[in-house]
């Protein structure tokens, strides 16, 4: 692993070597940075006192014996999946395993991770030990607890010192992959589940009192799956390494990207929801419709993508679009209408991808793929679920936070880019419509949009027709998010110079080709920082689900758990826990953004 990481280091350090930074000895560093003048000395002392006071207050809050931390521990399952039934819980673990495998393989294929000098790692561990010791002394612990924490700090210090010493052995500076450090840390955490007596908390409906709290390690249903997950992650990473060496790079990466895009709908609608397909109906109705569209669409599209088709193809494409709209006149299966509209989009875009037989075959294959995925999704969503869960939707808690965030981000990207292109286009109608939409949506608070979609829209629908609450909310989020995203993308588009447009025109590209292959790639690269910031914003905004009564992780922590007889008055504890979850994910996203910026060379070129 250290070999690959040193290769990465060499790769990223191409070009001029970074300037040497002279390291000061600790005493001088402190003097220069913290006590350089009387004013800065005073500032240092005051800030340290304030920080220590805050740390002490936080610790006394966490370790106060009146805190009901067992409310958090007992409701862990509620926090993450709400009412997902125990006997089907293997589906949740399976979905998690799929995501972990994809993450690990992607990390290997994209060569994630960096190398850390051992000496630095040792120093970090020593600093961590010092912090731990400080906390142990600050916190209002009993004497025995203080001793335990001090011992833990000493252990960390010994490990840190050992690492630091081993670094200086031998001549060259020894490094370790950041992934190794990550795996060792996670392994330590997982091992602690088996060893450290965190306590065993369970809810038993048939018992009085219904909440059971025992000392000892956590339940087997928690520690065993996490151990397996860690093993899977390591195995998948090693497999990813083999894939990277053996298979060509670009097809592997494209396959992984497609798998990432397919993962959310497949995991949610096939694995977690577990629809019970009515095979008779599928064979008699869904398959024939799919086959008809697949065949007819392929014929039409392969004709449309012939360069010689010309203007007649455009007329056909528009006819399909008009027919698609007119299918809404008569009652018929929704899937027929949606497929028709999808075909119209493909037909309209066909001239852009016109070319030789290979191009045409690819385009038709693309059509078959998208049609297949959509047909399957429609069938799966309309099939009743076998997971019986009280309440509207089959998952809740953090799962629904994550699901709404992922769907919003994935769906609002194409819509936002389209809006940005429309707003910068030369066609006045599109420009006006896009501007109106963006300015209108940006002028309305998100809560208004969400309440409109959750409370008003059901009243507008004909009686008996239900728009699922989660679906309604996702639509609201997507509309809101795409308006903001469009402005971020527009900023990126404006950074593409006039010369690029003219050069593209000069080589005879059509407007669509110019946009797709010249303008967007350059514009989006510039827009990465605001786009990632936007994604983090969307992830955190999902907490507004709480206002309309969807059981997301915040609503559960703030309202539902304090509403249990056993845990009245436990809001603060659970809010702290929820904020930690949010922080972990938002921080990871911002770290990922930093890596992405480095990789695309943003701010360097």
């Amino acid at each position, binding site marked *: 692993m250290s070999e690959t990481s040193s290769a990465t280091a060499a790769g990223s350090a191409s070009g001029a070597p970074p300037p040497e930074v002279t390291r000061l000895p600790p005493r001088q560093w402190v003097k220069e940075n913290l006590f350089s003048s009387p004013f800065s000395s005073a500032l240092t002392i005051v800030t340290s006192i304030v920080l220590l006071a805050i740390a002490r207050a936080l610790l006394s809050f966490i370790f106060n014996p009146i805190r009901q931390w067992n409310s958090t521990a007992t409701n862990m399952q509620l926090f993450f999946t709400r*009412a997902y039934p125990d006997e089907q819980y293997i589906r949740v673990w399976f979905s998690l395993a799929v995501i972990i495998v994809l993450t690990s393989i992607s990390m290997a294929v994209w060569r994630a991770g960096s190398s850390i000098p051992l000496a630095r790692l040792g120093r970090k561990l020593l600093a961590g030990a010092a912090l731990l010791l400080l906390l142990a002394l600050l916190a209002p612990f009993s004497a025995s607890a203080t001793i335990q924490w001090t011992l833990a700090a000493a252990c960390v210090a010994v490990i840190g010192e050992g690492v630091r010493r081993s670094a200086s052995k031998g001549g060259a500076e020894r490094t370790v992959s950041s992934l190794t450090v990550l795996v060792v840390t996670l392994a330590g955490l997982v091992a602690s589940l088996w060893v450290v007596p965190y306590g065993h908390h369970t*809810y038993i409906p048939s018992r009085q009192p219904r909440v059971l709290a025992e000392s000892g390690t956590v339940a087997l249903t928690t520690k065993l799956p996490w151990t397996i997950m860690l093993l899977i992650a390591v195995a998948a990473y090693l497999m990813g390494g083999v894939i990277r060496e053996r298979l060509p790079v670009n097809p592997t990466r494209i396959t992984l990207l497609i798998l990432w895009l397919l993962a959310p709908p497949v995991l949610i609608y096939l694995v977690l929801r577990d629809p019970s397909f009515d095979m008779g109906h599928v064979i008699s109705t869904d398959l024939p419709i799919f086959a008809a569209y697949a065949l007819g669409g392929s014929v039409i599209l392969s004709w449309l993508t012939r360069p010689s088709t010309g203007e007649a193809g455009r007329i056909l494409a528009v006819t399909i679009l008009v027919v698609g709209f007119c299918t809404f006149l008569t*009652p018929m299966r929704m899937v027929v209408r949606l497929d028709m509209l999808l075909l119209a989009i493909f037909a309209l875009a066909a001239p852009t991808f016109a070319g030789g037989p290979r191009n045409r075959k690819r385009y038709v294959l693309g059509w078959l793929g998208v049609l297949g995925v959509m047909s399957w999704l429609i069938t799966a969503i309309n099939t009743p679920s076998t997971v019986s869960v009280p309440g509207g939707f089959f998952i809740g808690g953090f799962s629904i936070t994550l699901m709404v965030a992922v769907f919003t981000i994935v769906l609002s990207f194409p819509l936002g880019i389209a809006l940005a292109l429309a707003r910068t286009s030369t066609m006045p109608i599109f420009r006006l419509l896009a501007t109106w939409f963006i300015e209108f949506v940006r002028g309305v608070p998100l809560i208004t949009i969400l309440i409109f979609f959750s409370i008003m829209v059901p009243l507008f629908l004909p009686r008996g027709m239900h728009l699922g609450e989660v679906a309604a909310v996702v639509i609201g989020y997507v509309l809101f998010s795409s308006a903001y995203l469009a402005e971020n993308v527009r900023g990126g588009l404006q950074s593409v110079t006039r010369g690029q447009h003219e050069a593209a025109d000069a080589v005879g590209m059509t407007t669509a080709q110019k946009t797709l292959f010249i303008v967007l790639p350059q514009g989006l690269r510039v827009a990465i920082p605001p786009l990632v910031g936007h994604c983090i914003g969307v992830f955190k905004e999902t907490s507004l689900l709480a206002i309309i009564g969807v059981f997301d992780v915040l609503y559960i922590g703030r309202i539902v758990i304090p509403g249990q007889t056993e845990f009245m008055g436990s809001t603060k504890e659970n809010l702290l826990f929820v904020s930690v979850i949010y922080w972990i994910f938002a921080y990871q996203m911002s770290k990922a953004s930093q890596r992405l910026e480095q990789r695309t060379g943003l701010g360097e070129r």
Partner: protein
Amino acid sequence: MKSKLFKIFALFLIIGAVAAACGSDSEEAAPATTAAPATTAAETTTTAQVEVVAEGSLLDVVQARGTLNCGVSGSAVAFSETQADGSVTGIDADFCRAVAAAVIGDADAVNFVALTASERFTAVQTGDVDVLMRNTTWTQSRDSSVGMDFGPTTYYDGQQLMARVSDGFSASSTVADIDGAVVCTNVGTTTEKNIAEAALLAGADITLLGFETSDEVYETFIAGGCDVTTTDGSALVGRKVKQQPADQEWVIFPSTPISKEPLGPTYGQNDSAWADAVNWTVYAMIIMDEYGITSANVDGECASAEAEVGRLCGGEGELQTGMGLSADAFHQVIRQVGNYGEVYDRNLNPVGLYREGSANAGWLDGGLIYAPPAR
């Protein structure tokens, strides 16, 4: 370039016009769509699920569907709590289960829908829920202009106040005694309005502090941020039992609440068959409580029962079958869920609420819980 753009623009204009035409047409076609046979009307879409709503009573719809969609709060202590495994318990949840036992025959055939206070009536109007058991107070405006109908009251609540004994309050204190006090309560509910009105009538000058959640109210109260806290009596008792610190003594007053909060089942108006089914489920549980027939002894009692109990057990049958239920509907309710007293004790005793001496005692014991005769 220009002419090409113009062509595309013209094309989209035409599409737009056609689409607009389609749109206006489809509005006219809408009645035809709804009148289409059930097979086509049961059309489903990616995001929307269309359900056939037969003209007639919700009772038939629920029986055909096989599950009861019951609107609850999902986060009201002792009334409807969402537990660690996602199940819903509480007195409201038990009445949902009772209605399911009566109408469908299976107390577990309930789909609990958690609703916020603002969503609850919309959910009934759109048909998302069949009945609301969401500690909803029966008021004139809700009964008339909001378009709801109310069933028999299952819990008589009322707003009261809670303060510290060390501040000189006792169980015999009145609203007039809180003159000059800081009063904490939840915002956005009627409790805020009730206490303001009551204080005005009693001539007490108070400072109101509003909080988003009840937990924040009690955190502030315990920390001494307010002298008095006020909400429904049931919630105050629960908080006193669970949260009173060792160094404080709290007292609830006045003995006559400052507001009337009758809580019970709520459903859409103008559906008598459905209203009868829900109401008589509650009445049957009250009558069985009067006779002392519980889930433990109902099978034995019903086997040899006569008169009123016999009729409710389904002995003669036509009383229940006449209203669209199976003859043993109420027998199932008692067996699977329990009578009124059992349901009350199971859910409310743990938070310190007892029937004796309260408005929720049976009418023979001086309370208000009363049911018309089954005959």
